[in-house]
């Protein structure tokens, strides 16, 4: 009885989470120019528009991908020494560095967006793609920082002591023990930052200064200026990217452990 109730509850939650996703995906099939559900006159024309023929969307997609990949790479690159410093030497400086890296992610992004807007305006970089990339790297650095830290903590210190007794330098130990064991966590962090950057809206809203649009910005513009089913295609791209990326993370890394489950239990 209670088992059935439990199943029903899980199913209901899944339905709740899926409902808007399904609706948006179906809306992409609309033949007309309005977002209707269920779709009228179903067609795949909107997919062609999004990926091939409509320059507004193809440009937005290119920019989104560029910003997501570059910012995730930079975020991971900055997060590595920060996490390593925190793990290897538990000093005040290391803690301060880690805290300042986590701060933008923890506080309301709109405040960070306003601040970055001023920063780039003062330095004359507002509305440029590099400014967008650096902004997202700063915003999402907390994610690789967290996953890499979890990875470093999972390393058995006895291995390091053994390596040191056998005469390995810190550099050698790093190359032969630390790096191989943390690669899955580094990749997970990179992908978390990638997906979040791809979906991020408000910070980009402030730093792009209407000079260019990413897919989320373009969707928001369409939301305000009347719906077009093409924007639903953009949404489907988000979904598929996210599912693909997190499946990869689950396949090559230990997702339950990353999310904080007890590693000893199966």
């Amino acid at each position, binding site marked *: 009885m209670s088992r059935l109730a439990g199943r029903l509850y899980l199913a209901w939650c899944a339905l709740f989470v899926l409902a808007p996703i399904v609706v948006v995906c179906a809306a992409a099939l609309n033949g007309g120019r309005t977002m209707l559900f269920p779709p009228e006159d179903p067609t795949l024309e909107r997919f062609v528009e999004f990926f091939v023929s409509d320059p507004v969307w193809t440009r937005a997609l290119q920019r989104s991908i560029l910003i997501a990949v570059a910012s995730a790479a930079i975020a991971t690159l900055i997060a590595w020494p920060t996490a390593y410093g925190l793990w290897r030497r538990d000093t005040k400086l290391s803690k301060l560095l880690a805290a300042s890296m986590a701060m933008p992610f923890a506080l309301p992004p709109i405040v960070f967006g306003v601040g970055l807007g001023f920063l780039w305006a003062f330095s004359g970089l507002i509305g440029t793609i590099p400014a967008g990339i650096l902004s997202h790297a700063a915003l999402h650095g907390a994610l690789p920082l967290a996953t890499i830290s979890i990875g470093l903590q999972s390393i058995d210190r006895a291995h390091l002591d053994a390596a040191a007794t056998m005469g390995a330098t810190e550099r050698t130990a790093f190359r032969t023990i630390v790096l191989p064991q943390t690669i899955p966590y580094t990749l997970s962090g990179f992908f978390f930052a990638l997906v979040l950057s791809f979906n991020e809206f*408000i910070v980009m*809203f402030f730093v792009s200064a209407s000079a260019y649009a990413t897919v989320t910005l373009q969707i928001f513009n369409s939301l305000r200026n009347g719906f077009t089913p093409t924007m639903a295609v953009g949404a489907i791209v988000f979904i598929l990217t996210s599912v693909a990326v997190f499946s990869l993370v689950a396949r090559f890394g230990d997702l339950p452990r990353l999310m904080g489950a007890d590693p000893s239990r199966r």
Partner: protein
Amino acid sequence: MTAARPQASGGRRPGFGAVQALLGLVLAALCVAPFAIVLVVSFGQVVEGASWRWALSLENYLRFFVGLEWPASTSFLYLQKLWWTLVYAGLAAVIAVAFAFPFTWLTTRQSRRIQTVWLVFLLSSLSLSEVFVVMGWDVLLSNRSGLPMVFRETGLTDWLQSVGWFDTLRDWGMATPRNVRFKTSVFATVLTMSYLVFPYAVILLYPALSRLDPAMLEAARTMGARPFTVIRTVVLPAARLPLTGAALLLFVYLLGAYVVVSVFADPARQTLTITIYESVRGATLNAPFGAAQAVILLLTAGGFLLASLRLSRLAEAKA
């Protein structure tokens, strides 16, 4: 490798200090400076037109709390915005946690494999842009298709009218004379906000609930406690701190919601995020005042964040 010198683990490698110094500079410029700039600009003064200059005036803060015309007259317009910011975020955070708790509990009882599938599903929906979620609910709640249509077609509207609840809905602004209406309403705003953070709530509760000692549950069960009793007397008390901590974190996160409010909230009931945007980039163009509003939002969020950190420390100390 030339000479194998024995080196104590944790020994200082020259060069790492330089790396950390460089790192400090990068992080100070990218992560800390934006917040500092907002704080400094918030004391600035707006000049005729849309520009502003550096200053050290408190007029922006004064305007926030008592209005522009003070002391001749007072206006609590922006305090009202702050109030709605807190109301939406608070309601949505509590609702999300309330629904996520049984969900997470049931998920952690499954095998590791099924847990992974659920986690992929949730993480995918969690990473969804606010823009995307709002678009989905916008279609679902719109008057021409979606829920209002379902209400009419299934006769639910007629039924509501016959029992008299329809008038109550109209009083709440959630119905037109002919059918239910969800846009714009507090209901739509809170619903979409709780949808936004539901996956976060699950992820936040997951560690605590998946680490609960199985022996304790086993003991309760062998003593004849029914599943619901186990949850009420064992799981819920053990998860009290994580539950409160999760609600606080989600609350802080939702303080910054922008798209949801701009689409679903009644203009009279909009939040600070909207007015911040309008001051900094939108119609009213008053950057220092926008910065002052941002500082107040930041202080509010920071205060609650500190409280939640305290709480998690407390939870760790207990464990």
